[in-house]
């Protein structure tokens, strides 16, 4: 008799579990996938009101020629999206019509605008008639943006020195300065 009671208890428990299952359980689940695809981006813009750098006559005859003050009116603005663990650099390359006797210097300085891995500026680079190959001015650029206001991004200061006055000719020379945002090779 006691065994029969136990059996009824077990039967009742099974029945109760079954009803609970029917009455309040999760009945179905379905899903969908969302994909965000971010493509590589490499965009560079030069914001500049660069006027000119000049060599002018001294105040008094017999003195050395004078050069104009440095120009700091150029900003490089860029947006970069790279693969994880990879970087880019910006190079500066003057055109080949470089005037003899003149040295052109460029000092890059990152402003505080933008976010992300905006890179590191290199020390001052220089170019003259014998050294016109492209030089890196900013490296270790990752995924970042600099903003695009008139004074956002990397500020470039240009100035000139007279290397050898004996080689200078009176003339106006327009030098094209080319900036390139390029992938680092691994």
């Amino acid at each position, binding site marked *: 008799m006691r*065994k029969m009671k136990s*059996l009824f208890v077990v*039967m009742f428990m*099974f*029945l109760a579990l*079954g*009803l609970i*299952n*029917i*009455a*309040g*359980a*999760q*009945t*179905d*689940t*379905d*899903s*969908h*996938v*969302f*994909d*965000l*695809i*971010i*493509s*590589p*981006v490499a*965009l*560079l*813009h030069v914001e500049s009101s660069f006027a000119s750098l000049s060599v002018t006559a001294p105040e008094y005859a017999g003195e050395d020629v004078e050069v104009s003050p440095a120009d700091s009116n150029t900003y490089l*603005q*860029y*947006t*970069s*999206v*790279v*693969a*994880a*663990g990879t970087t880019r650099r910006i190079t500066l390359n003057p055109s080949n019509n470089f005037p003899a006797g003149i040295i052109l210097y460029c000092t890059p300085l990152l402003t505080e605008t*933008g*976010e*992300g*891995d905006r890179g590191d500026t290199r020390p001052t680079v220089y170019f003259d008639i014998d050294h016109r190959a492209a030089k890196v001015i900013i490296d270790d650029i990752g*995924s*970042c*943006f*600099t*903003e*695009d206001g008139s004074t*956002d*991004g990397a500020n470039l200061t240009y100035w000139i020195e007279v290397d050898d006055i004996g080689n200078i000719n009176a003339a106006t020379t327009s030098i094209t300065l080319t900036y390139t945002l390029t992938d680092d090779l691994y």
Partner: protein
Amino acid sequence: MKIIAKSTILVFLLGFMLLANEAWPAMYMNLTGSWSEIVNSVPYAGNDFQNTYESATDQVTIDVLGTAGVSDQWQIVVKKSNVDWHNDLHFFVKRTSDGAGAGSISDGMADYVEINDINQYFFSGSGNRRDINIQLKLSGVSVRMPFGRYSIRILYSLFDI
């Protein structure tokens, strides 16, 4: 003899439970649609990507069917399962239509519900409802993220309450 009797009762009981499930079919859900977003440009050099993206208002459609009648109540909860996600990204869902059918539906329309790794209440109703439209939103997109594919699975669970 007693053992045979007990076994017979047990088999009967299990059979009854199976029949009960068959006679009382569970409600179920149909889900159609998915979403993907390709981000590949900025307006100007120096800009960040657009931060927030919204899908069409009927990007995903849900049907709740197989209820026992207009008074059979249910609710839907939602969560995400990270496949290859980025911590800066946030994903949201919002109900944009009541759907059609007998019964009723409520909640989930006023604001987006942000989805995380545990179930969040989304909306509830009663009876069969078809074509309940769902809009999706993504925020936190930035060029600071490495390029590539970021994926999540959005899981909707229907509870009979």
